[in-house]
């Protein structure tokens, strides 16, 4: 089961700062743990994909990312989703403040 996510998106200096938190163990497969990690993180601005990323098990547990989007206005929709190596997904949507 995917744990909670949190996100904050704010307009600053004509751009939109996005900070997103994800609950995930991000285990490396070493020391008897399973290899279990988020592989893809996608950021959408008003439904349009603006950032696509591939990440490895080297990203820390409970990943936190900050991104910067061009422009943006209060009330715009930001969506961040992830997909892990077991095919589980989660996403969060928030309005720009």
């Amino acid at each position, binding site marked *: 089961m995917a744990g909670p996510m949190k996100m904050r998106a704010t307009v600053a200096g004509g751009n939109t700062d996005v900070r997103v938190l994800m609950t995930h163990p991000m285990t490396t497969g070493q020391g008897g743990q399973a290899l279990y990690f988020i592989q893809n993180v996608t950021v959408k601005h008003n439904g*349009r994909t603006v950032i696509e990323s*591939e990440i*490895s098990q080297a990203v*820390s547990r409970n990943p936190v990312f900050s991104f*910067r989007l*061009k422009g943006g206005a209060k009330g715009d929709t930001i969506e961040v989703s992830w*997909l892990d190596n077991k095919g589980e997904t989660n996403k969060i949507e928030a309005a720009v403040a």
Partner: protein
Amino acid sequence: MNRLRRTLLGALAAWLAKPLAALAAWNESAFGAKTPQDALKGIGAANPAPSKEIVIDAPQIAENGAVVPIEITSNIPGTSSIAVVLEKNPFPLAAKFDFGEGALPYVKLNVKMAETADVRVVASAGGRHYAATREIKVTIGGCGG
């Protein structure tokens, strides 16, 4: 009967899961590479040119290798992707971000580092590749109990 049903359900689940996984790309050969060179080859960015236009903001010393914060900004015009390579990790490629029209080539993330090592950031712009490195010392302070 039951077994047959389970098999059919399993096949159905596998079939359903497939297109989902196929939707997102994950560069298995680059992320599975065991040397920084192979990792860069894997993302098609072998031999990047050194650049001062990539700014890596990270502490020189990380108290705990499990959480090493790295903030990256590329000032190279037209930067379309940023890759993070942790030179001494067993699998050096940690992340690759592709920025579309609506995003600035900026990212902040936390990574795990096995030991004191260089962090190499490779930015791609207009089909060319640029790199900057920064050393981060990792002191994993042990404690009793």
